[in-house]
């Protein structure tokens, strides 16, 4: 998507639904100079090829995790054979997701990725046909078995093509049929070691043939409800990290604050948190770098100056450093300007857009929440054991930042309400 030359383009390029990908990732991406992102990338870069790294990655909703993972994949594409796996894109029911679904999904993604025609034709040499035949048999005999009917691939096809077709078939059947899911889960529970063995075998073939180890990027597991996420990552952490391939799992931010987190983390090589972009330091001083990064998120998308500087500043401050909120606020301001037949976004458009988001956020709060918000605005403490604080972090009424230590503050959209109630200084 090209940079915006007018307000109509602006409505398109400020898209709160899609994370950056492809050319947009090169054109619009903002380097947020995040220490944790740099550490995560370094960790993966310096790892020995035979030393798989297992990472957990989290951050508040809308902070930009998906875009950062896409950027990481782009940066590491010469170091790793990247296998992205998105639970939601499979249309698998996340409300009943189990650890075995995750491993099966990752295996299926690896088999599909390694057998896609463009990858095979670009490979220096064909991956061994016997390995594919072995995986084909595993699909037919173990995953589907005699009870589950499935579309068998054409016998004349090469084994790699058959495996690809079976992986597609699995994805379709698994998303659509509850009985199939239950049958497969039951069978795999007893054969999990065998499935992990197949992943290892394929990962090894990929490593030998492509000279790059496998790195799974598991997305959407941060959207799981906390109980399910705890059951998967605490209950089966050892299994999730058993394969001989590197992997990054996204996890719900709430899990990071839970008392179980140390136990969960013990199975993984490391965990990384993506903080929101800071507009202020903990002491209230302006963070110029944060302003610049957020301003770049707007200007990188514009070919012409389509927004008044005061309007831009108002939007940056209201976003609280949440990338997706900034994108939505800017899009809505452009929509308003367009509706009023203007050619630029003015301060009035920005303020109207901010007011709408403020209305949405205040509608979620109960009167009792304001006392907690006021307390956190004063002390900036994350209070990981405090349920009220955690709930407000989850609702994005409180935003987490980091410089040195982690701290939180009230979402700037809510400050006027606190000031009106006399709970914060004007």
């Amino acid at each position, binding site marked *: 998507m090209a940079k915006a030359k007018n307000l*109509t383009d602006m*409505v*398109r390029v400020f*898209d*709160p*639904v*899609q994370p950056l990908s492809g050319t947009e990732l090169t054109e619009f991406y903002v380097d947020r100079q995040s220490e944790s992102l740099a550490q995560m990338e370094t960790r993966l870069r310096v790892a020995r090829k035979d030393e798989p790294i297992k990472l957990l990655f989290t951050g508040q*909703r*809308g902070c930009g995790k998906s875009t950062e993972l896409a950027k990481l994949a782009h940066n590491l594409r010469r170091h790793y054979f990247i296998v992205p796996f*998105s*639970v*939601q*894109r499979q*249309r698998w*029911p*996340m*409300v009943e997701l189990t650890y075995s679904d995750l491993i099966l999904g990752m295996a299926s993604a690896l088999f599909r990725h390694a057998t896609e025609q463009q990858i095979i034709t670009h490979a220096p040499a064909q991956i061994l046909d016997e390995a594919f035949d072995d995986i084909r048999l595993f699909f037919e005999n173990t995953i589907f078995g005699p009870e589950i009917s499935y579309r068998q691939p054409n016998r004349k096809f090469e084994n790699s093509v058959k495996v690809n077709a079976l992986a597609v078939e699995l994805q379709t059947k698994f998303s659509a049929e509850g009985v199939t899911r239950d049958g497969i889960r039951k069978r795999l529970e007893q054969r999990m070691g065998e499935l992990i063995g197949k992943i290892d075998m394929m990962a090894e073939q990929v490593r030998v043939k492509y000279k790059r180890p496998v790195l799974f990027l598991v997305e*959407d597991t941060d*959207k799981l409800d906390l109980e399910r996420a705890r059951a998967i990552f605490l209950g089966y952490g050892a299994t999730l990290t058993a394969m001989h391939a590197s992997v990054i799992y996204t996890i719900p931010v709430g899990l990071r604050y839970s008392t179980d987190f140390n136990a969960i983390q013990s199975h993984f090589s490391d965990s990384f948190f993506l903080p929101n972009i800071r507009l202020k330091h903990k002491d209230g001083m302006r963070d110029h770098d944060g302003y610049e990064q957020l301003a770049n998120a707007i200007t990188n998308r514009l070919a012409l100056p389509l927004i008044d500087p005061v309007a831009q500043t108002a939007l940056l401050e209201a976003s609280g450093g949440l990338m*997706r909120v900034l994108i*939505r606020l800017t*899009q*809505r301001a452009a*929509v*308003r300007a*367009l*509706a009023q037949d203007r050619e630029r976004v003015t301060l009035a458009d920005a303020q109207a*857009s901010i007011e*709408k*988001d403020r*209305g*949405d956020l205040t*509608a*979620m709060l109960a009167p009792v929440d304001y006392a907690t918000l006021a307390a956190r605005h004063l002390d900036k403490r994350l209070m990981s054991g405090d349920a009220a604080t955690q709930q407000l972090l*989850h*609702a*994005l009424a409180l935003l987490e930042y980091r410089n040195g230590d982690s701290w939180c503050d009230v979402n700037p959209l809510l400050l006027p309400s606190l000031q009106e109630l006399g709970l914060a200084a004007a």
Partner: protein
Amino acid sequence: MRLTLNARQDLKELSVLLRHTERACWAFAVYNTSAIRDVALKSLQRLLKPIPIFDFTFSSNQRNPLAYLDTLPPKAGERRAVIIFFDVERADDKVFGILETQRETFADHPHSLVFWTTPVGRVQLARKAPNFWAQRSGTFDFTVKQEDEAIKNTSPKIQTLKVSGTKRARSHKVKPMRQKEKRKKGKRGT
């Protein structure tokens, strides 16, 4: 009944958003009387012409909006359309679960989605499908002050009973809304 100045402004903004986005987007239209909702909808249809509009009403036997998207005619799957969802606040947790966990699939469709919801429904959605809610392009306010007796008489509570008669037809027929509207000649039942 006429739209307030603010509602007219929001309606214009909603139509600008739906007209100019190229990829999937979703928005929430908040209302508290069915009369206002119907007036706004009619104006929206006019403003969006010739973009096709389809509608879907959540009910006990029509819970999966993704399945609905799959039933759209093949041409509608390729062309961008506006899909209007009603009664999401009357849906059960399973619906919120679908919105929350399948948002990538919604994002893969080329359509713009508009959820008409009451203020209570807005809160429910934000709490029960927080990730879906977080990706909204915005909320558009069509609520009116409730003091007016005439407004009370057309509140969504009463509207539910009337809607239920047409719900089935609406839920199962996949036809562009504007054609259906013409046929019904305003007999929306709401």
